[in-house]
């Protein structure tokens, strides 16, 4: 996803000279090419995220479109109040790019695990949150978020995510994509969990549990219509995200279901429970241990099967 982002950034920066990349000293081996091709559109602000957000606000209010880049935890947390006051309050046209969403930085440890970023960004007015699921969606979504003139949080994975879409797959901010329909249950997944969700849905369907899946790439504004619609056509909804179950996609979907959904539906959030990761391991390993690998997702869903079937 990261490479796809850098590629589309290069294409779009060539067309729009007001696009400027600000990085908090991250992007070694990633931005060298961009920097040499567009030296006037690249600015390494240094390891100072709070200042970077303020600078981005100043750029945006004087006609630039700043693209602010760092690891998801740092970019959303170090300068949170600056994002709130300087960017969201002023409706500054700043795109905040968080790389390494979820457990992408597995071995790096808890400081690098981005498990609360969606929750805290979601609490802010005026911001749009997009979590693309593969490289093709990164490119399609990036074009759309640049068309939107306001604050966006764009949560990337890292690299090597399997393809789900083709380069021509359509993308609309705020419109969930129904990848598969299911009468027994529907998974609503976001970002780098969509692929695992899709595979789990196929396996579950083969096992006789008719499982659907929605790619909810935009967590804010949430596509309430698709949630309400699908809730009528399925017996259970499971949300799936590489993020804490507190405050993220699962919470957002539960808000819609509890206020606007039908009365009886089985609902469960799959994500990282309210905990820091204490195990050492790479992303795949941690997903397995914490129940977010394809196999463990299938197992967790089947375990509850009797409750909703």
């Amino acid at each position: 996803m990261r490479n796809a982002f850098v590629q589309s950034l290069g294409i779009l920066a060539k067309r729009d000279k007001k696009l400027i990349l600000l990085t908090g000293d991250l992007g070694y081996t990633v931005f060298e090419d961009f920097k040499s091709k567009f030296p006037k559109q690249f600015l390494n602000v240094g390891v100072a995220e709070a200042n970077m957000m303020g600078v981005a606000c100043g750029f945006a209010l004087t006609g630039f479109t700043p693209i602010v880049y760092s690891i998801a935890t740092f970019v959303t947390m170090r300068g949170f109040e600056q994002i709130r006051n300087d960017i969201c309050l002023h409706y500054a046209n700043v795109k905040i790019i968080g790389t390494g969403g979820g457990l992408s930085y597995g071995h790096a440890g808890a400081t690098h695990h981005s498990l609360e970023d969606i929750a805290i960004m979601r609490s802010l007015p005026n911001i749009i949150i997009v979590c693309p699921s593969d490289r093709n969606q990164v490119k399609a979504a990036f074009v759309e978020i640049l068309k939107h003139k306001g604050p966006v949080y764009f949560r990337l994975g890292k690299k090597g995510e399997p393809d789900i879409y083709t380069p021509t797959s359509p993308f609309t901010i705020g419109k969930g994509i129904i990848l598969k329909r299911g009468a027994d249950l529907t998974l609503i997944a976001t970002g780098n969990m969509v692929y695992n969700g899709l595979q789990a849905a196929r396996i579950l369907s083969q096992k006789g549990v008719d499982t659907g899946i929605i790619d909810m790439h935009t967590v804010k504004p949430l596509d309430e219509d698709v949630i309400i619609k699908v809730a009528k056509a399925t017996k259970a909804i499971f949300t799936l995200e590489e993020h804490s179950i507190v405050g993220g996609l699962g919470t957002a979907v539960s808000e819609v279901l509890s206020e606007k959904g039908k009365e009886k539906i089985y609902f469960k959030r799959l994500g990282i429970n309210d905990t820091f990761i204490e195990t050492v391991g790479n992303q795949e390993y941690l997903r397995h241990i914490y129940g977010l690998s394809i196999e463990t997702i299938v197992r967790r869903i089947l375990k509850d099967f009797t409750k909703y079937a």
Partner: protein
Amino acid sequence: MKKPLDLENIAKTIRKIILTISYESKVGHIGSSFSIVEILVILYFSFLRINPRKPKWHDRDRFILSKGHAAPALYATLALRGFFPQRNLSKYCKDKGLLEEHPKHTVLGIEISTGSLGHGISIGAGMAISAKLRKKNFRVVVLMSDAECDEGETWESALFASHHHLQNLIVLLDYNKVQAFGSIEEVLQLEPLTSKWRAFGWNVLEVDGHSMPKLLSTIKKTAASANKPSIIICHTVRGKGVTFMEHTIDWHYLNPKKEQYYAALEEID
């Protein structure tokens, strides 16, 4: 020939407005507002390239009141300079009012909503580097409090502005040596303040922040700074203009009683 403006009289009027709107709305920050009156008068009536009839003019100088709690002083100045009618001042901090305790960017003449400390230089630096990249001539002026030097972001932005040679960025530091809950010396020592900023690569100037002629000549000197951002340490007095409010921390939050209000008004006159 145009009659020269009576800046002293404007400063007096601003102090009276600050006192009155604070008294009427029972909101504090009088002391912090009084210490920046002369600075604002010089900026808005002698230095900034602005046009109240075209507040969004692209090439205007940008001013950011980083110490947002001194908003009453800014409101009074903007009203006298013609950005909005003076009658709007009576709606300061009232229910269904127009003006909040801290500046809001939706008010004509206000660039940035502030109130949380330490944000001003970062935003100003972003505007200043943007101006340089686009070869625009506007200048960016940030007015900050001394206590904002407690904030880490201030020093992040200080590094950034000097690294990028933002000579079009001018910071005025209101050094009244008193913060919300004590003197600077008691709470968190800033001295040696000028050498700190100099060590961060800034063009550092010092001035009596209540002398308008000196303020003007000092701020004009910043134009000679070829490749450094400038900071002017303005030595000021918290509560300046009303003897019983001067130098004390009380008037950060306090609001005058009726007798105090009239006594203060009389002294300003």
